[in-house]
């Protein structure tokens, strides 16, 4: 029913989307979704700066220049923390660490999630029942407390933290991928392929994966955002790597050093702001792709504005078209 209200015809629409080049699509997105584009630009900029920190950072982040907090100055643009370390340098190296953990954990989580989601969706029945009950179980468990406990027991370290975060983030991905795989599996071209004797591997790689790929991308982007948040939480409680500076650790230092009550905003705000900006830009990007993939969100039957009405061009003079004449001629 909704299809009738929104033209064009289904055939044309299908042709159109498959012909569009990625460049055109990107430009279209830029016009309709400026937030996402800003997010992408900002995120890329931060990422570049962070990974260039060995060359761009003004000082060594572990070097101490004073005994306590120092407000921003020309020598130290973001001031010094309670240990006398340059905050700007800490920020750059810390962002690098947080991004590494975020991406690493997400790769792991997505890999697990996609494999399990594919298996559950494609082979169904018992495989699905098994995987789904495990996923449901994990969904109910609070993830961050679990991560904290595991980290407390297992020990600290950058790779350990990445692993811990990654191992617990796949649940949401599995559900989403599984649902999509199940719907793709029922599509005509897949059934046709099976009837023609296509192997599971062939069908999965050639038919299912391309349909699922955009969803995987969205999930990945949004998972990185969550992973960065989780890293900040774990490091904040002292469960990160004590040898490495990270954004969460900067916040921990600020907390322990009483920056908030002392009014030392420079030790607190930049790190938190960077985390927020990273998460925000990732969320904007992810949401934009998600909205593009989910056309239903575009249809809403309630709207403040109404359809446009062309006013009547009726005049009192009858229109001397042939039809009028022939109508009056007929019975």
């Amino acid at each position, binding site marked *: *029913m909704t299809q009738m209200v929104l033209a064009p015809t289904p055939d044309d629409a299908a042709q159109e989307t498959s012909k569009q080049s990625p460049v055109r699509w990107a430009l279209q997105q830029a016009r309709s979704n400026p937030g996402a584009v800003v997010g992408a630009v900002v995120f890329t900029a931060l990422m570049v700066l962070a990974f260039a920190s060995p060359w761009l950072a003004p000082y060594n982040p572990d070097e101490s220049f004073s005994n306590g907090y120092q407000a921003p100055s020309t020598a130290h643009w973001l001031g010094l923390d309670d240990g006398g370390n340059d905050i700007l340098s800490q920020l750059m190296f810390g962002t690098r660490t947080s991004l590494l953990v975020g991406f690493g954990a997400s790769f792991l989580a997505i890999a697990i999630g996609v494999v399990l989601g594919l298996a559950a969706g494609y082979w169904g029945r018992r495989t699905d029942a098994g995987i789904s009950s495990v996923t449901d179980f994990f969904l109910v468990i609070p993830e961050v407390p679990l991560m904290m406990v595991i980290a407390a027991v297992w020990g600290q370290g950058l790779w350990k933290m990445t692993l811990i975060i990654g191992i617990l983030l796949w649940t949401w991905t599995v559900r989403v991928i599984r649902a999509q795989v199940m719907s793709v599996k029922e599509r005509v071209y897949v059934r046709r392929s099976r009837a023609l004797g296509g192997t599971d591997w062939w069908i999965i790689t050639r038919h299912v994966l391309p349909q699922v790929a955009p969803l995987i991308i969205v999930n990945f982007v949004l998972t990185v955002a969550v992973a960065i948040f989780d890293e900040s939480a774990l490091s904040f409680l002292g469960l990160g790597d004590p040898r490495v500076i990270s954004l969460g650790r900067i916040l921990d230092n600020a907390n322990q050093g009483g920056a908030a009550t002392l009014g030392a905003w420079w030790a607190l705000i930049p790190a938190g702001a960077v985390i927020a900006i990273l998460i925000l830009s990732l969320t904007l990007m992810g949401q934009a792709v998600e909205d593009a993939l989910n056309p239903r969100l575009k249809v809403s039957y309630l709207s403040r504005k109404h359809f446009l009405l062309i006013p009547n061009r009726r005049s009192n003079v009858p229109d001397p078209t042939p039809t009028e004449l022939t109508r009056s001629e007929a019975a």
Partner: protein
Amino acid sequence: MSAMLEVDDLSIAFRTEEGPQVEAVRGVSFSVNRGERLGLVGESGCGKSTTLFGIMGLLPNTAVVGGTVTIDGREILHGTQEELRAARWADVAMVFQGAMNAFNPVKTIGWQIVEAMEVKGKYSGAQARQRVGELLELVGIPAERAQRFPHEFSGGMRQRAALAMALANDPKVLLADEPTTALDVMVQAQILDLLERLTDELELALVLVTHDLPMVTETCRRAAIMYAGKIVEEGPTDILYADPRHPYTRLLFEAMPEILDDREVASIPGTPPRMDREIVGCSFAPRCPSAVAVCGTREPQIRVVGTRHEAACHRNDPDLAEQFSASAVTEST
């Protein structure tokens, strides 16, 4: 007798993000009298459902609408939004395609039918609740089912309940958008019988939109054939069958498989034109087996070809007769 429903030069276009407007309905005109059933037939995407939505003003804010819709002498599109809303379900009501989903799943059927009445104010309170029972019985559903939720009804029953709800406020015009799609043949027949009986008894003006030509020939006395947003032929159903004056109509009838016939099932090759581009000449010309040069350059106007029978095809134009072969206008394969 003036028509109960008069649609005059209705045009509906949709603005898109990419730029060009999609013209879904291009100047459609027809009229339906009391107690009359008009079938609106065409392929998917020809604009027939959009026309119905346009009649009720149920269009999104990306729509650009022109023309008039007059019900019982009153034009409803050009008034205020309030007037349009008042006319909905009071003067004109609709049964939707896939009425399976037309009901709110968390409210009972009875509640929703009562709501349709109380909002209009014609029936209310105990009277409305009583009427719900009567309406359901009218469409062949036991009255006590009103307490049930939509998911407890079968597809066919839900469609009938939707019909009952549509009739709640004694509308003058009933619009039915593919009311039997996704229902099995037995239920289809029941629903069509119901529609016939009710339009006769209640003297409704019915517009039945469908792509199913056999259904129209059985149920409707008149039919309008739509193609690419325009009506290409309109007339009494039996005349359209016996003496079609548009190639598309003829091909549609030929595409109807006959049980007792050995004839091959003919199909119409090609696809309908894109609606986001301007169409030069006759919109059907690319697929028309009888097209000639002028069909590609000049758009044919609707012209009368018989009693209450009109068609838009250059073949009916006496001035262009020599362009077509000497054989009769109505060719048979």
